[in-house]
């Protein structure tokens, strides 16, 4: 292993990335815009969970507390013929005619079912005593932000290494390098190192930019969060190396990378909690590095835990990195 050769490739790769302004801009602006968009979309007193069409206004004497229920959005509708199709197509969860004391729901709609239960039970007496929970107020955007940061990192790691190496192979760059004293280890480690610091730097910039824009809760240590992203990025880059090891077509590489990244996006809890998801899917999600990165990042940012509490995630990511790197190095071919 020659540090001189490693450094030469590392520097050249950095130049290529940093001078590609369109890619740089996309890497920085996309996640910031996404998180800011969520902040705007989900800001305010609370997101309405249900949409109910109202055929007439409710007078004070309607006598039903249903119409004062929070998190239900009551939307005036013009007439029955235009409103009913909206119920059929799940655009409205329920249609109510307070004057006629009638309501319509779609029998196939789970939300319609719940609304019917609320409507019929609203104001009813119960022998259950109400208890309240207290704690930190967590907005949806606070919860989703670590996921989006990690997801952005995942795409950057997978495509930034996997796709680039395949492109080098396809255009003959790797063949040219093979004809020099440069070894695969020197080349691959330079690619990994270059992508790693660039991703950590851009993630830090995105974090700072978004934090400045909407304000994050950060109850843990920044060093711990950096550790999570460092270990996580290494595991994702290593996964990208497997795809890049032999693939010669950019189209195939893009397909493989999409096949890896999109299931991870949906199964790793970026957008919604995995609570209540089928146990098999929950177990599958544990095989994805993104799951561990997101859970560890949320634990640090939202719960303020230390490294000991997330050591399981860090160990899992380290084990995956070693496994992915070993397979990637074993499979790697210049051509």
């Amino acid at each position, binding site marked *: 292993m020659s540090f*001189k*050769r490693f*450094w*030469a*490739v590392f*520097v*050249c*790769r950095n*130049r*290529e990335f940093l*001078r*590609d302004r369109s890619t740089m801009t996309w890497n920085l602006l996309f996640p910031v815009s996404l998180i800011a968009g969520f902040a705007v979309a989900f800001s305010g007193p609370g997101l309405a969970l249900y949409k109910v069409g109202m055929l007439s206004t409710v007078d004070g004497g309607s006598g039903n507390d249903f119409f004062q229920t929070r998190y239900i959005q009551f939307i005036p509708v013009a007439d029955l013929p235009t409103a009913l199709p909206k119920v059929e197509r799940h655009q409205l969860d329920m249609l109510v005619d307070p004057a006629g004391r009638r309501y319509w729901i779609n029998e196939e709609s789970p939300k319609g079912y719940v609304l019917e239960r609320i409507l019929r039970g609203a104001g009813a007496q119960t022998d259950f005593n109400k208890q309240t929970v207290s704690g930190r107020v967590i907005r949806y955007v606070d919860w989703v932000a670590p996921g989006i940061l990690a997801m952005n990192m995942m795409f950057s790691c997978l495509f930034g290494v996997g796709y680039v190496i395949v492109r*080098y192979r396809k*255009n*003959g*760059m790797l*063949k*040219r390098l*093979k*004809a*020099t*004293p*440069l070894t695969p280890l020197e080349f691959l480690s330079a690619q990994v190192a270059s992508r790693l610091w660039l991703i950590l730097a851009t993630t830090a910039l995105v974090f700072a930019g978004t934090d400045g824009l909407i304000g994050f809760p950060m109850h843990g240590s920044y060093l711990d969060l950096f550790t999570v992203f460092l270990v996580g990025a290494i595991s994702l880059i290593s996964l990208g190396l497997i795809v890049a090891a032999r693939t010669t077509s950019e189209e195939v590489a893009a397909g493989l990378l999409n096949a890896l990244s999109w299931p991870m996006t949906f199964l790793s809890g970026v957008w919604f909690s995995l609570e209540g998801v089928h146990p098999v899917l929950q177990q599958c999600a544990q095989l994805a590095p993104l799951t561990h990165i997101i859970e560890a990042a949320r634990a640090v940012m939202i719960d303020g835990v230390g490294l000991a509490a997330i050591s399981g995630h860090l160990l899992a990511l380290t084990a995956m990195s070693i496994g992915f790197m070993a397979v990637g190095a074993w499979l790697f071919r210049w*051509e």
Partner: protein
Amino acid sequence: MTVLLEARHLIKHFRGVQAVNGIDLALPAGRCFGLLGPNGAGKTTTVELLEGIQEPTSGTIRYRGEPLGPRFRQDIGIMFQSTALQDYVTGRENLRMFGSFYHRTLPLAELSEACALGEFLDRDTRKLSGGQRQRLLLAIALVNDPELIFLDEPTTGLDPQARRNFWELIHQIKGRGKTILLTTHYMEEAYHLCDEIAIMDHGRIIAQGAPRELLAAHFDDVVLQLPLADFPNPAPPLSLTVLRGRDTVEIFTANVDAAIQELRARDISLARLQIRPRTLEDLFLELTGRELRA
């Protein structure tokens, strides 16, 4: 003369296809050796075996009497027919990167002067013309002051002027005592640059020697060329060998005076007659029955 690179009984199979079929080659130091052949002849595979890019199915390759190893990598320079360079990186930065791979490197100023890079050395490689790109790739191949240089169809795609300029660069490299293995489609290029050529077909070398010696060994005639429009149709009976092409008629003869007399006797206009010597293109056609770029 010292043999720098030697291949014996070289064979390469690809999934049932025998690309290289028992080649023996010896590259003497300080000479320019040309490897010619049409697409599919096994030329590129042979060169890649000699470069160490591919492993032979069987046979041996030795550099200075030893199997190819780290010293070989340090001592060679390669210019592939088409090599992409990293985007957003200048020629100077590319040269620095490649230079850092080797123990010994030529000063950047010397390389720049030798390959005439001055005007575009600090330009993004995406913005180079075809000729500039080839000159930069040649400079990269020379960055380690190599003993042995592989040039794989270096002038393909260049305009005639750029090609001539490139030949001049290769002459200069030869003048510094470097050994060159050149593959090309252009017979004129091989004739101008190579001290020795080998013609390949179907994975074998079918002729080898100095270009003039090969031509002398195979031909003792010249070619008279007439525009097709000046030649009667149907052709009159002639004792000469006549080849009718798309635009020209070629007449092969060892006795030009007698041939001209016979053509005059048939009232064929000789106003646009041209006489040319036999070329490597003719030799290849004679040996393989195929055109070089078929």
